[in-house]
């Protein structure tokens, strides 16, 4: 019993730091010293740049070695007609472990579906028929819709006014990093925080 209480006490700070994080949309160890929450809009070109050029480097240099816990948050902007729909599909796909696959596809073909509005066709193209059926149904579930809204509310509470914005948290310190970031500067920031 004592051991259980001790283990729970040790785990509590980790749980608190990522209490809101959807495990299906998070990468790395929750006990990593730094947490990065990425507030992103699937229809935003700068978010596409971050996802395709910067985050893979963050994964290799920091997430895989256990230094950063990366949490994806949906922040669809009102000016983008289809981004909330895309966010709901991606969040639903996360329930089946397909978040990264759907996110990669949405960003890769962003220009096409943003123009045509064919978000579902894009998402379905990378899922098995069985998974596609489940994701399509779940995306309309109130639980998914409210999860996306909850993440939007988190972003608004953090005064996020552009996408992408990364909130870098180390202990009690939170640093917003907005826009298309230079990886050398991000790396310098993270290395400085890890010292």
């Amino acid at each position: 019993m004592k051991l259980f209480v001790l283990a729970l006490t040790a785990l509590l700070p980790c749980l608190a730091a990522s209490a809101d994080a959807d495990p299906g949309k998070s990468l790395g160890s929750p006990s990593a010293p730094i947490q990065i929450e990425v507030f992103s809009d699937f229809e935003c070109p700068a978010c596409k740049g971050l996802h395709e050029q910067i985050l893979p480097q963050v994964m290799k240099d920091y997430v895989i070695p256990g230094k950063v816990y990366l949490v994806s948050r949906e922040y669809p902007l009102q000016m983008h007609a289809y981004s909330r729909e895309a966010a709901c599909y991606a969040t639903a796909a996360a329930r089946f472990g397909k978040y990264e696959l759907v996110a990669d596809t949405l960003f890769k073909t962003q220009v096409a579906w943003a123009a045509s509005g064919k978000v579902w066709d894009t998402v379905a193209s990378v899922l098995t028929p069985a998974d596609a059926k489940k994701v399509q149904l779940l995306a309309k579930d109130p639980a998914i819709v409210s999860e996306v809204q909850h993440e939007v509310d988190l972003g608004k509470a953090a005064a996020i006014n552009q996408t992408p914005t990364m909130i870098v948290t180390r202990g009690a310190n939170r640093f917003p990093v907005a826009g298309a970031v230079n990886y050398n500067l991000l790396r310098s920031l993270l290395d400085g925080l890890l010292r």
Partner: protein
Amino acid sequence: MVSSDRIFRVVLLVLRVALGAVFVYAAWTKLRQPWQLFAMSIDAYRVLPYWAVVAVARTLPWAELAIGLALMAGRWLPVASTAASLLMMMFLAMMMRAYAAGMNINCGCFGLGDIISARTLARDGGLLVGYLFLTWTSLSARRKAA
């Protein structure tokens, strides 16, 4: 009855201390964060090479602090007010360029969360007018003393 000259000197004092405090505050918002965050704001303008972004990010806040304190203390006024005016002219030019190009980026003036807009341009334009006025009065005073 208070002379207009006295009123002018009081107004000038208040203006000098207030504008000095603006620079001190601007320096504080940058110095209290890791320097890399201010560097990211500078880099977002896409004007300077990386090495210059780092150099400016690490030195500009200290320059702002020195200028602000000098203005507030009323020391080295011609140099401090001229430096403040030149810096503000440079900041405003960069902001206007970014705004005209439709760049949705942080001003970088007072830390984060300050997207360049008509409001921020008007604000910084107003500050520039204030610094230019201080420069003119301090240089005029120096000419009279000479």
